[in-house]
């Protein structure tokens, strides 16, 4: 994987991502087959497809959690400055990681820590400043302010999912990867997620959201891509209309 960029680094500059003939193999199973996809900064991509289509694998590769078996992944945009410079050759990797947020299948939180302790721990790992206020704001925003000291294991599925989304947004990522983020959310939670994603889209954050089922946040998508058995079956394109693909998903739901 690599990162390219020339402008001054900034935490608020957009990030895009480009997959070039990416394949991922697990033993004899080919989960991704020569996937080529160029996602511009600021796009909101709905990644559609049935279970086992390769959506999660693609997102995990984008999150730097997994290396592709073959092919190339490049981060694009000005946000990844410092590339090729500095004594620390991990600087570009860490720079990319600071700009990526992910909501995965699991909540990526510690059950035996409280909501505030979880967010504080990750805020420290990301080297954020003003952690107390940042954590308090994040908890208020996701509606968990009154349960800040509650252990995550005592939370309902929906509360855990909201906290998981809050964790992913804590460091203000410019590339947000969402793997079935609506799972377990009630109407209130879905509304909060929808308004949060709308704000992020308007702010220029690149969002890739995978789903195999319909949810209201899909209406925010500026592009729809469907994967079937590890291959791109349909792509509305960066300048195309995602609505026919999204309507087809609704039809199947």
């Amino acid at each position, binding site marked *: 994987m690599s990162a390219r960029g020339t402008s001054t680094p900034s935490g608020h500059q957009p990030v895009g991502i480009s997959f070039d003939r990416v394949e991922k193999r697990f033993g004899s199973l080919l989960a991704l087959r020569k996937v080529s996809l160029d996602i511009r900064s600021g796009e909101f991509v709905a990644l559609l497809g049935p279970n086992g289509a390769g959506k999660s694998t693609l997102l995990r590769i984008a*999150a*730097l*959690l*997994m*290396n592709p078996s073959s092919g190339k992944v490049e981060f694009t945009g000005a946000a990844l400055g410092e590339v090729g410079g500095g004594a620390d050759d*991990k600087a570009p*990797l*860490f*720079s990319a*990681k*600071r700009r*990526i947020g*992910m909501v*995965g*299948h*699991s*909540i*990526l*939180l*510690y*059950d*035996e*820590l409280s909501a505030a*302790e979880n967010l504080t*721990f*990750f805020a*420290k*790992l*990301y*080297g954020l400043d003003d952690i107390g206020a940042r954590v308090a704001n994040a908890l208020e925003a996701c509606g968990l302010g009154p349960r800040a000291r509650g252990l995550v294991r005592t939370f309902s599925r929906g509360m855990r999912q909201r906290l998981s989304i809050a*964790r992913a947004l804590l460091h203000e990522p410019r590339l947000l990867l969402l793997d079935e983020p609506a799972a377990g959310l009630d109407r209130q939670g879905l509304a909060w997620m929808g308004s949060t994603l709308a704000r992020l889209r308007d702010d220029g954050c690149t969002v890739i959201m995978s789903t195999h089922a319909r949810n209201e946040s899909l209406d925010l998508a500026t592009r729809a891509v469907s994967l079937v058995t590890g291959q791109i079956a349909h792509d509305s394109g960066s300048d195309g209309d995602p609505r026919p693909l999204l309507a087809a998903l609704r039809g199947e739901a």
Partner: protein
Amino acid sequence: MTTARAAAIVLAKELRLEFRTRELLNLTVVFSLIVVVLFSYTFEPTAAESRRYGPGLLWIAFLFAGSLMLHPSFARERLNDTLDALRMAPVSSFAILLGKMLANLIFLSLSEVVLVPVFAVLYNISLAGVVGRLIIVLILGTSGVVITGTVFSVISAHARMRELLLPLLLLPILAPLLIAAVEATALLLAEQPVLDPTWVAFLAGFDIVFLTASWLLCDFLVEE
């Protein structure tokens, strides 16, 4: 962020989690006490007999307790996939490993603080006059167990049958360390106690070699 700072953050999280649940500490202390107490019934613990068998029993108890304690170190990061969250953070893989190693060192050392006085009483061994030197041997030996065990805990966490895999991988690798630690302890518990620099150097060398190897291989270890 420096590796030391990131490791300290991971260490603080590990301590908070453990002192809240006490899963590892309770299990390890009880297990190692059972081993030491059961062995005390198998022979007449005169001072001479204890000097002969005691150091081996003590280190076997530490080793078993360590392999029991070290398995959950990374295995419990599988719950909710929190290891993914750690790997996504902009910190080095070595910082994650180092934080875990330091936490395990503290936990195993706490078990030893409980176990060693009980061992001294049950086996009629006086530790007066050798406590300082014994602490040096315990720290060096325990560090070796923890460094190697934490590394193998990462490897086994991804595997099937991981509960069995860790002792199978760990115990043969730790055989040289066990010999050195037992010999160094036996010399300290002898009638004329002596801290043998050769065994101490061996223990320190073992720690340095495995810590360096874990630093070199940390990216491969922590990767999926």
